[in-house]
C-alpha cells in the first residue's frame, strides 16, 4: 500500500493556502489534513465512540486493527471513533485594528490568519458534533453566534467570519465582559487575539469566565516581526490603534525588544496558567497544524 505524497493542507504555508480558496474551503482542507494526520500521533485520538472503518495505512496503530475482519476477509482495516457530543465551544475572535497588520506581503494579516484558524477549529469541533459559537470583538462585541451543533451552523459561522466589521480600537476587557454575558452555559472558550493589551485587566475578565466554569484556551497570534522585531532601519514606529510612536533603530533595539517580548509572553503564560487556562503563542508564519495541535494538546491537558 502506497501512502499519499500530496502535501497536507494544514502543513502548507498559511498565506499560500489562503490563496487557494475561500475561507470555507480552506478550513475544510485544514481539518481534513489535520484529521488524517492524527493517526500518526502517539495518542489514541480524542474520540471514544466507534464511528467507522477505514483501510489500514502504514503507521496506523496496530491496536486499532480489526483482526476479525482481517482473519475473515484478509483485508486490514482500522476502527475509528467519535467523541461524544457534549461540548459547547465558543470562539472569541479579536478583530481589532491591530489585527489587520502584517509585516510582509508574504504573510497573512493576523486577522486573516485568526479567521482561518477559527474556521478550522469550528469545523473540527462541529465534525465531533460539538456545539460551536463565535463572538467577534474589538472595542465591543461585533458579531455573536451562539454555540450550536446543527449542520447549518458551519455555514453561519463561515459567513460571520467573512463579515467586514471590526477594525476599531481594541478594548478587549470590555468586549470579554460583554462576551461572558453571551455565553451563560459552561463550555470551552477559545480566545484568538494578538493581546496587545495590559495583562491584568484581561486576566481579571477571564477570571470571571473561569469562575463561570468555562475552560479557556488563549491563542496569542503574533506576526513574526512582532516576535523578533525583524524589521530593518531607523524609523518612527507607530501603533495604528493608539497612535503611540517610538523612534528606534531596529538593529540596536532588536535584542532588547526580544527580551521584553520574552518577558511579556512569560507574564501571559504565568497569569493564564495560574488561572487554569491554556495558552499558546501562534505565529502567522506557522502552518495551521501547529495551533491546532496546541489547541488539542491543551484539551488533553485540561479535558
Amino acid at each position: 500500500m502506497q501512502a499519499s505524497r500530496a502535501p497536507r493542507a494544514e502543513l502548507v504555508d498559511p498565506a499560500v493556502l489562503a490563496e487557494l480558496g475561500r475561507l470555507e474551503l480552506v478550513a475544510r482542507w485544514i481539518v481534513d489534513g489535520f484529521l488524517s494526520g492524527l493517526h500518526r500521533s502517539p495518542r489514541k485520538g480524542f474520540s471514544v465512540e466507534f464511528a467507522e472503518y477505514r483501510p489500514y495505512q502504514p503507521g496506523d496503530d496496530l491496536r486499532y486493527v480489526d483482526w476479525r475482519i482481517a482473519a475473515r476477509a484478509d483485508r486490514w482495516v482500522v476502527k475509528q471513533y467519535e467523541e461524544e457530543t457534549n461540548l459547547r465551544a465558543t470562539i472569541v475572535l479579536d478583530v481589532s485594528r491591530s489585527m489587520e497588520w502584517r509585516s510582509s506581503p508574504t504573510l497573512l494579516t493576523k486577522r486573516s490568519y485568526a479567521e482561518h484558524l477559527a474556521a478550522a477549529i469550528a469545523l473540527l469541533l462541529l465534525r465531533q458534533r460539538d456545539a460551536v459559537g463565535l463572538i467577534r470583538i474589538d472595542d465591543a462585541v461585533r458579531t455573536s453566534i451562539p454555540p450550536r451543533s446543527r449542520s447549518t451552523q458551519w455555514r453561519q459561522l463561515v459567513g460571520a467570519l467573512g463579515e467586514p466589521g471590526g477594525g476599531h480600537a481594541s478594548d478587549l476587557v470590555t468586549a470579554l465582559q460583554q462576551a461572558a454575558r453571551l455565553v451563560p452555559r459552561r463550555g470551552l472558550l477559545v480566545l484568538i487575539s494578538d493581546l496587545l493589551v495590559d495583562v491584568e485587566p484581561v486576566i481579571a475578565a477571564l477570571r470571571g469566565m473561569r469562575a463561570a466554569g468555562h475552560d479557556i484556551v488563549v491563542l496569542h497570534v503574533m506576526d513574526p516581526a512582532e516576535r523578533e522585531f525583524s524589521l530593518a532601519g531607523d524609523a518612527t514606529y507607530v501603533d495604528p490603534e493608539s497612535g503611540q510612536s517610538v523612534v528606534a533603530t531596529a538593529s540596536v533595539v532588536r535584542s532588547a525588544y526580544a527580551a521584553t517580548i520574552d518577558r511579556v509572553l512569560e507574564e501571559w503564560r504565568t497569569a493564564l496558567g495560574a488561572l487554569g487556562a491554556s495558552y499558546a503563542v501562534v505565529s502567522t508564519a506557522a502552518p495551521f497544524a501547529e495551533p491546532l495541535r496546541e489547541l488539542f494538546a491543551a484539551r488533553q491537558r485540561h479535558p
Partner: protein
Amino acid sequence: MNFLAPLYLLAGLAAAVPLLLHLWRRRTLARRDFPATRYLERAEREHSRSLRVSNLLLMVLRVLLVLAIAAAAARPIAGVAGVGHAPVALAIVLDNSLSTTAVRDGIAEFMRLRDAVRGALAQATSADRLWLVTADGRVRAGSASQLLDELAATQPLADGGDLSRALVIADGLVAGAELPARLLAIATDAQRSAWSAAIRTSRPLQLFAPDAPAPPNRSIVALAASPARWSPAGAVDAGIRSPDSVPVRLSIDDRTIARTIAPGSGPLTLRAMATERGWHALRLDLPPDAYVADDQRYAAVWIGDAPAGITRPSAGPFVEAAIATLTSAGTLARDPRTPVTVGAAQDVDALPALLTAPVNPLDIGAANRTLVRLGIPWRFGAAVSGRWTVRGGLADGALVQQRYELQRTGGRSDTVSTAGDAPWIVAGERWVLVASPLDPAATNLPVRAQFLPWLADALIARAAAAPGDLRAPLARSPRSLLHLPDAADSLEAPDGIVTPVTAGTRLPGARGVWFVRTRGRRTGAVVVQADSAENSLDRFTAATLAARLSSHGNATGNASRWAASVYAGGRARPLLLPLLVIASLLLLAEMFVVRPTRTTVP
C-alpha cells in the same frame, strides 16, 4: 600629513549624515506602522541605558567609518615612527658649477657639497630609485653604489652650468617615478648669479648650502683686445674687481708681454707690442686667491703688420687728415708694402680698398664701372637726400644727409651699417664700400670722434684682412655649440692639437683659446670661458634660496642633518591600507552592534 587627492576629504562631510540622523532623527525618520509599539516602548524603557550607549556607539562608529573612508580616498601620506624609510624616488642635484671651486677654510666648496651628497646616497636602500643631476644637466641614474662611483668621478665644470635647468630636469625625473614618495634634494653653494632665474619646483625641496659667507675674491670680469687686430701694437681692455690694488700680468701664448698694478675695481687698459703674427691667445692673470678660476681670463688677438693708407684726392680732406694721423700714430704703416687705397670709387684701381660714393653725381657711371671691374657685388643707384641716423658698426649714431641707394648684384658681403634701413656701409673680402662721400655735406661721420677708430677698423680689420679670416675672435661658453665658417676645416686646441671639425661642433668643457684653421692656417680664434657672472661669489642664505625654489623648501647648512632630512619624505608612508583596515574594522564593529538577534518563537 599630506594628501595625494585632498579633494576627497570633502567626502568627510558625509560624516554629518549619521550625526544629523542621530540628533534630529525624530524629525527626519520615516513613520512605520507597528502594532506592538507598546512593547517597543517598554523595551526602550527597560533597556534605556544600554540602548542609549548602543545608539551613541553606533553613531560614533558610523561617523568614524565615513571619515576613515573619506580619509582613505584622499590617499594620505604621513610620517610613521621607526627606523629607515620607505622606498623613495630621489633626485639629487649637485652644484658642480665653476663657483664651487672657491676655497673656504682650506676646502673647496665642491668637496663639501660632494661629501654631503655622498652622505645622502649612503643612506639610500636598494629599493630606492636614485638620480644624480649635475649643473650641466647631465643625469646619472642607478643604485646608490653606482651613483657613489659617479660622484667620485664628478669634477667641477669650467663654467656656471645651468642649475635652474638641472633642477627642472630633476623635478621631472622624480615626477615620472612610480614610487609614492618622490623627493628632491640639492646641494649648492647658493651663488646668487646661478639662481637668478625664477623657478619653483612642484614638490618639497631639501636644500643644503654652506652656512657661511663667500670667501673674499678678486676677479677679472672682462678682457678683450683693442682693437681686435693689432698692427702689431695694440692694447687689451680689462675689467678688474678687487677691493684694493692688485698686480696683473698680460701674456701672449704664455709669454708675458705686460705687467702693471691695477688700482682696484674698474676698467684697465694695457698697451703692448707683439712680435708674433697671426692669431694668438692673450691671458690676463691676477695673483691666485680663494677662487682661482676667475684670476685668469682669456682673449684672442690677430697680430700683423699694419697696412699703409693710400688716399686718392677724391677721398676728401677729412680722410686724408685721418690717415695721416693714424700713420703718425703707428696704427697705419708708412711703408706701402701692404697698401689700402682710399678714395671715391671711380678713382680706385685695385683692392684692398675703401671706396666711397663720388661727390659729383656725374661720376656715378664711372664709379659703378669700377665696382664691376673690382668684382664688388654692389652698385650705386639713385642719389637720395634726407636725414638718416646710421645704425650698426663703429659708425653707429652718425647722421647722413646725402647717399646713393646701394643695389646688390649677388655675391657674399656684409652689411656693416645702415641708414634709414638701407645699406650704407657694406664690406667684403678686401674692400669696404660707403654709400656717401666722406664729406660733411653728405654725412657728419668725418667730423665725429668715432671717425678715426672706424677708419682704422675699416682699413685694418676689413680691407686689409686676409681672405677667409674671422674679423674678430668668437666668445663662447664651454660645451656650447660652435658654428664655424664654411671654409674652416679644423680646430686647434690650446695645447696645439689640431682636430678636424665640421661646420657645427661642440666645444670642449675646458677654458682657453681655440684657433679656427683653414687649409693649415689660423683664420680665427674662439675664446672659451665662463660668463663673467660666474665670477661673483655673492650668495643667498640657504633658507632664502630654499624659499625661492620651493613652497615647501627646507634648508640646512649642516651636511649630516641634510643627508638625514633628504629622506624625511620617505618616512611619510601611504596610509591607504591602514585606513582601509580601520574602515573594515569599524564596519565589522558596526555590523556587530547592529547584528540581527535570532529568537525562537516559543
